[in-house]
């Protein structure tokens, strides 16, 4: 027989104190782990937001280039009808090109012209067309029109290709021009910085060759040891050749003065004299030789009348060419370039041209899809939950259904896409790519979540409330609808919104039913072809144009805003409907 009096003495023993200490330590450790976990999660979130917001910033602004454009009457509306249809058929692309040609008459070759046209978006001609159709009175006039800049021009203006950095230049520049190329010579070593850059590149190349030579030397040693002298001799020759190249490069780098060629893989050096630029193809410490962009005569330029710029990123590594940089810089100096907030991103549908692509089409597609989803999933889910929780008898059929609903909640979402493809599209003939199809599939996917959440919420309603209602003669249905359902509404709504939020972020099932298509038009109903926000993000992330990078991040932000809004709504509704008993 245990004496309880003896047992109670344990409370004051040193062992008890030690145990208490251990318990406290365990508690402290758990707290520390918790704080660590939360800190880690917070840091991950901050990093994510930082990266996304930082990248997205570029998508919220767009650039415009203002150019005078002559709307020739004989090109646009030869008979002066002023009819929209006739004006609409005119070649505004040509008008736009003419405006550029007038602005830069020195651009002559076909390739250069094409590069020049590329600084203005293909969409600008359509905007000019809209403007003219809306106001035919401007035909025959020269107007200043704000042309939307192309993606590469826009990216350059936002500094995505690095900056054109002005270098110190204090000498007097002597120019010898033959019209196409020019030799420029400064009175001081104003180009020494280029030589330093080029020479450090030479040394880097030499070091690479020496590394390669060392590998060959290793090979030679191994083959000599094995007695394979033929192979060893080959290695030796290769080694000597590489060493020779390295020595030659090092000699070039060591030489004071000298000239070095600049190619597509070297940094670009641009000499500016007002509106005319020279792109150097050969450089020495005091000057160089290069192609004229603009019109240039021989002569002497005093210090301050000329500048030299370095674009660090080689031309081969960027989409925007030196010619385009020169044209954009000239426009910028003339005050013809502006970068403004982009309403277009929020108002436009998708486009192949990044500068024309907007999120609105996908947002509206998401809206229609979600509408279909909630209209189907909420009533069906809640009714199923009411039946299962309040009416269904506990037998094996219902247990089987219950278990399977729980299993369905864990089924990969793409499987629902296959189901939708086979049944809704294949059998019932729901149109492809339509929000109706997507909404049905997402509703089926969301149903288990809603049912489980609703059942949990109903099960949490105290049985005494059911007893009370039944006790005064309410039927089961009345009990469920008048008492259980209102009391469980906060939980049901929370579950529903969480399910909807998951559906809003879902891509995989929609791939199966064709909502991954390229759809330019903003859908006007549930039967139109549409895409949704996460699919838009997925598609943009896959496009090669660099400007889509910013748009992908911006679309992610828009989706996150939607999700935060929905979760906020869930919190609000929960608070609003919450009742205590």
């Amino acid at each position, binding site marked *: 027989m245990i004496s309880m009096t003896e047992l109670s003495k344990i409370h004051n023993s040193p062992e008890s104190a030690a145990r208490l200490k251990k318990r406290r330590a365990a508690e402290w450790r758990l707290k520390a782990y918790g704080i660590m976990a939360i800190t880690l999660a917070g840091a991950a979130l901050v990093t994510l937001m930082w990266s996304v917001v930082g990248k997205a910033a570029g998508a919220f602004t767009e650039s415009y280039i203002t150019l005078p454009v002559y709307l020739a009457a004989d090109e646009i509306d030869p008979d002066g009808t002023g009819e929209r249809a006739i004006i609409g058929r005119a070649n505004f692309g040509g008008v736009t090109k003419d405006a550029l040609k007038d602005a830069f008459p020195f651009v002559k070759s076909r390739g250069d012209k094409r590069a020049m046209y590329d600084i203005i978006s293909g969409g600008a001609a359509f905007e000019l067309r809209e403007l003219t159709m809306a106001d035919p009175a401007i035909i025959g006039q020269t107007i200043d029109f704000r042309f939307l800049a192309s993606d590469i021009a826009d990216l350059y203006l936002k500094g995505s290709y690095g900056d054109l950095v002005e270098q110190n230049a204090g000498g007097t520049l002597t120019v010898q021009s033959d019209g196409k190329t020019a030799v420029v010579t400064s009175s001081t070593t104003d180009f020494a910085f280029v030589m330093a850059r080029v020479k450090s590149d030479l040394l880097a190349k030499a070091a690479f060759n020496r590394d390669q030579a060392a590998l060959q030397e290793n090979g030679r040693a191994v083959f000599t040891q094995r007695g394979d002298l033929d192979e060893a001799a080959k290695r030796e020759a290769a080694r000597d050749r590489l060493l020779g190249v390295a020595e030659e490069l090092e000699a070039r780098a060591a030489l004071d003065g000298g000239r070095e060629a600049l190619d597509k893989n070297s940094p670009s050096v641009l000499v500016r004299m007002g509106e005319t630029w020279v792109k150097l193809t050969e450089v020495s410490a005091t000057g160089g030789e290069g192609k004229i962009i603009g019109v240039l005569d021989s002569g002497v330029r005093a210090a301050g009348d000329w500048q030299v710029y370095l674009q660090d990123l080689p031309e081969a590594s960027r989409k925007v060419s030196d010619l385009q940089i020169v044209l954009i810089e000239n426009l910028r100096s003339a005050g013809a370039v502006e970068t403004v907030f982009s309403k277009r991103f929020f108002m436009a549908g998708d486009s192949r041209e990044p500068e024309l692509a907007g999120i609105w089409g996908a947002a509206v597609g998401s809206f229609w899809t979600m509408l279909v989803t909630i209209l189907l999933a909420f009533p069906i889910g809640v009714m199923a939950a009411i039946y299962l929780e309040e009416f269904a*008898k*506990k037998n094996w059929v219902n247990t089987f259904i219950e278990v399977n609903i729980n299993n369905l909640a864990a089924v990969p979402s793409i499987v629902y896409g296959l189901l939708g493809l086979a049944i809704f599209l294949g059998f019932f003939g729901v149109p492809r790519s339509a929000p109706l199809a997507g909404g049905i599939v997402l509703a089926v996917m969301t149903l288990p979540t809603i049912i489980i959440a609703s059942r949990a919420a109903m099960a949490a309603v*105290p049985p*005494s*409330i*059911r*007893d*009370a*209602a*039944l*006790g*005064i*003669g*309410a*039927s089961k249905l*009345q009990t469920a609808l*008048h*008492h259980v359902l209102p*009391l469980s509404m906060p939980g049901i709504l929370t579950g529903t919104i969480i399910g909807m939020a998951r559906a809003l972020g879902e891509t995989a099932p929609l791939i199966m039913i064709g909502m991954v298509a390229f759809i330019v038009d903003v859908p006007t109903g549930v039967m139109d072809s549409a895409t949704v926000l996460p699919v838009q993000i997925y598609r943009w992330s896959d496009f090669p144009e660099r400007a889509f990078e910013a748009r992908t991040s911006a679309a992610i932000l828009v989706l996150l805003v939607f999700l935060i809004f929905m979760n906020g709504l869930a919190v609000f509704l929960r608070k609003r409907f919450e*009742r*205590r*008993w």
Partner: protein
Amino acid sequence: MTNEVKISTKNVDVFYGDNHAIKDVSVDILKNTVTAFIGPSGCGKSTFLRCLNRMNDTIDSCKITGELLMDGEDIYAKSVDPVQLRAKVGMVFQKPNPFPKSIFDNVAYGPRIHGLVGNKTDLEEVVETSLRRAAIWNEVKDRLDAPGTSLSGGQQQRLCIARAIATAPEVLLMDEPASSLDPIATAQIEELIDELRNNYSVVIVTHSMQQAARVSQKTAFFHMGDMVEYGDTTAIFTNPVDQRTQDYITGRFG
């Protein structure tokens, strides 16, 4: 007290799955009489009470055999709708369970779903009458819009009684209605029960023998699923026939 039988039960057996909860019980509930069911915990008195308005129907595993007649009609007949039955046999539970709605809506719920009154004025009258009968009108008449859950425990229980009365039942079943109340609230409820006897048959399950002695005219003593003894309250408490009854009321067990 009359001798007119309101509910008569004969040879009632109740099973929860394999558990034989009520064994061959026969009791007659009289009109305008308070009948008390007493007995130790788990003796089956609550179970038997819940048979009288078919609240046990909500328990899947519960099986009931025997004869239960109200006004000569079988309570468990196929033709009887339990919803209709429960409108006639009201119930008050051990724990006060007002709906999380206003005091008014709590009381008005029964009349509304049963279509007892046609217009708002009548409904208000029914609510007032019920609250007056439940002796709570004076405490809540100024705040009928306040949630029923905001009342104190005793007030909540009286509200529940008012709610049960509002459906105009013929029988009122009370499952330990004062068990969670303080002595003052208990006294109020007991007074109320005595008052209610004029209009209803009241069946009350209680753990408190003093309460049974105070409020009831008839008493049934349950033990281990058996109905050991049934008779006039005074007789049971002064001159019990069965040894177990004697032991229980003298506090030797239970």
